[in-house]
């Protein structure tokens, strides 16, 4: 029971000022920062260096070590592959780099994807590393994200482990009867297991709903923990996107 604490991996407990900021401030700061990054022209190289420096400062203040961030950046890998392929595949004028002729336009396009994706991913990693998932959801609710979406995310967080555990038990049950997924012919067995898992989860959903009704649920979740943010806290969180905006403005001069 209780195997695999899947959502413990992103969060890193701490007591820095970044950790203590209310979740709604951090969410808004990260989204605004990402918007500024995306809006930056790809050839304003110093601006990108400035953004990266900002994130390094945030990471340092929050006490998040580079290896922690680097390991989690692997989610970006598909984009990196695409970005690396662009200089080889794009048409247009070419330049010689280390003896290989590459497309100028492709190089810039690849750089554009790589730089912006990296900055966005690192900002999200920093957000997730300093905010517990459930607190993040409270922040989302506070920002008036539709109740239904927040509730669905909350249940996902709560039941991911339960469903993974159920899946593992089904796998053990299959293998105990000498089943091994070796070739495509066995896909139907896996598919039926997936179907059974879906039905079980659906039925669990019904039982959870009954349990909720029994405790007076009438369609809206009561707000139990309300995290309010002071102007001061909004101000601190705002320094990230506002400094980024200043850097962008500076690069345009």
């Amino acid at each position, binding site marked *: *029971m*209780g195997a695999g*604490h899947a959502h413990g991996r992103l969060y890193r407990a701490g007591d820095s000022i970044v950790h203590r900021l209310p979740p709604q401030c951090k969410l808004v700061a990260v989204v605004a920062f990402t918007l500024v990054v995306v809006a930056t022209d790809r050839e304003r190289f110093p601006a990108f260096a400035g953004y990266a420096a900002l994130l390094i400062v945030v990471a340092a203040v929050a006490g998040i070590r580079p290896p922690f961030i680097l390991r989690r950046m692997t989610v970006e890998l598909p984009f990196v592959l695409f970005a690396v392929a662009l200089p080889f595949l794009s048409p247009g004028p070419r330049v010689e780099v280390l003896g290989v002729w590459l497309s100028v336009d492709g190089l810039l396009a690849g750089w554009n994807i790589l730089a912006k994706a990296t900055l966005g991913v690192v900002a999200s990693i920093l957000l997730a590393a300093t905010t517990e*998932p*459930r607190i993040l*959801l409270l922040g989302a609710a506070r920002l008036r994200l539709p109740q239904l979406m927040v509730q669905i995310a*909350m*249940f996902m*967080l*709560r*039941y991911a*482990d*339960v469903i993974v555990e159920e899946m593992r038990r089904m796998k053990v049950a299959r293998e105990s009867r000498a089943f091994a997924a070796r070739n495509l012919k066995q896909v139907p067995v896996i598919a039926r297991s997936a179907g059974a898992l879906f039905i079980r989860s659906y039925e*669990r959903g019904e*039982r*959870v709903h*009954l*349990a*909720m*009704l*029994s*405790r*007076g*649920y*009438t369609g809206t979740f*009561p*707000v*139990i*923990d309300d995290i309010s943010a002071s102007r001061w806290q909004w101000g601190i969180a705002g320094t990230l996107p506002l400094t980024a905006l200043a850097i962008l403005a500076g690069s345009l001069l």
Partner: protein
Amino acid sequence: MNALRVSGLAYAYPDGTQALFGVDLSLERGERVALLGPNGAGKTTLVLHLNGILTPGAGQVHVGGLEVGPARLREIRRRVGLVFQDPDDQLFMPTVREDVAFGPANLGLRGSELERRVKVALAKVGMAHAADRPPHHLSFGQRRRVAVATVLAMEPEILVLDEPSSNLDPASRRELSEILKNLDVTVLMVTHDLPYALEICERSLILSGGVVVADGPTPEILADGELLTRHRLELPYGFAVPGAQ
């Protein structure tokens, strides 16, 4: 006034399967009663009528003199606390504290009163130390106790437990029975764990085939081997009711 009175309760599921054929029973305030019966006897169906989740096809349910009906669901659900069999169904919030607060918050409580309810309920089941932990990090026995607390926090008049001893190891089983015996509420415990019924409940009912077929002091009911056998109930091997011949 009875704490709970069920009279002539009949119910058929939408697919036509009749589960209850006229159930009559009543509980006095402060009583602890076991509802015994084999699988498929209609125990869970009956339980879901007690707080208005299912609506009777015929007959009525009264809780503390108040008839269960659509207009009074909130009050009924405050008075009747249901503890479901699988604590993973009952505990759906990210932390124990929020889960225990869910019921009273739905009743409109906030702030210090809400906090007090959570603290008292968790203390009653000996789980105060786990308030900030996510439910899935607790052992099964601990989750069952927290599930009881989520209902106690609503300060119910009747606590209804569906198979409270299922899947518990012997120590968790004993801890839970000690907690239940010390609570100051009317208890209806649905089970086919006969020794557990004997330990906790002075009175037992047998529900079989959708009707109540026996009602009496638990030791007497459990001593009637023929009655038990007729309704697919059996004492565990080697178990004898203390004081019975």
